[in-house]
């Protein structure tokens, strides 16, 4: 599964130009769509490190929600 951006002026697989989507496109078709100027592969962004949850964070949320 990769992330693609629709770079041409035409919808690709129902996705509007300028939008990104994740899909498993068969390699031969992927190469075809990229060469034709319809798609580009969006490099996978590195996942952000999550901050460890602060002690008592859950409690505060509960209080806010109550």
């Amino acid at each position, binding site marked *: 599964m990769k992330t693609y951006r629709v770079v041409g002026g*035409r919808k690709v*697989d129902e996705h509007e130009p300028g939008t990104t989507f994740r899909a498993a496109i068969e390699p031969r078709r992927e190469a*075809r*769509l990229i060469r034709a100027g319809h798609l580009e592969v969006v490099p996978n962004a590195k996942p952000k490190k999550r901050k460890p949850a602060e002690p008592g964070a859950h409690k505060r949320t509960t209080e806010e929600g109550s």
Partner: protein
Amino acid sequence: MADGTFIIENGVVVIDGVDLSDHIQSCEVTMTQEDVDATVMVAAGTPLGTIRRAGKRDDMFSMTALSDFAAGSLHATLFPLFRDKDVFTVEVRAFDEAAAVNNPVFEGSCILTSYAPISGGVGELATMDLEFPVSGVIAERTTGT
């Protein structure tokens, strides 16, 4: 009685997943099947008529498109399909809306057996006649996008 007749205005033609509707002037979805003669001997005095069976399907999408060599347009999409002998999907629907019983999507896996990127005379709009023979049969879908 509900009248479902319509004038083609905002039909959708998608080739290899790419919406090329804005370059399609006309489109035809054709499904045919062989007429197989299954005639057998008849008893004397019985009129001899042809007995028929429906045989092999031979489906096709045909369309007239406006020639365009711009990046990301018709030629860039179609010529690789012809050159590389690829099998790809073609989808046609009458309205630019989700598939439904009253807006069926006709789709099939196709090949492009001939390609004439330039056709027309002086002063005419350059067009190309396209035929997409279907490998297998055209399917009708009435749900989904």
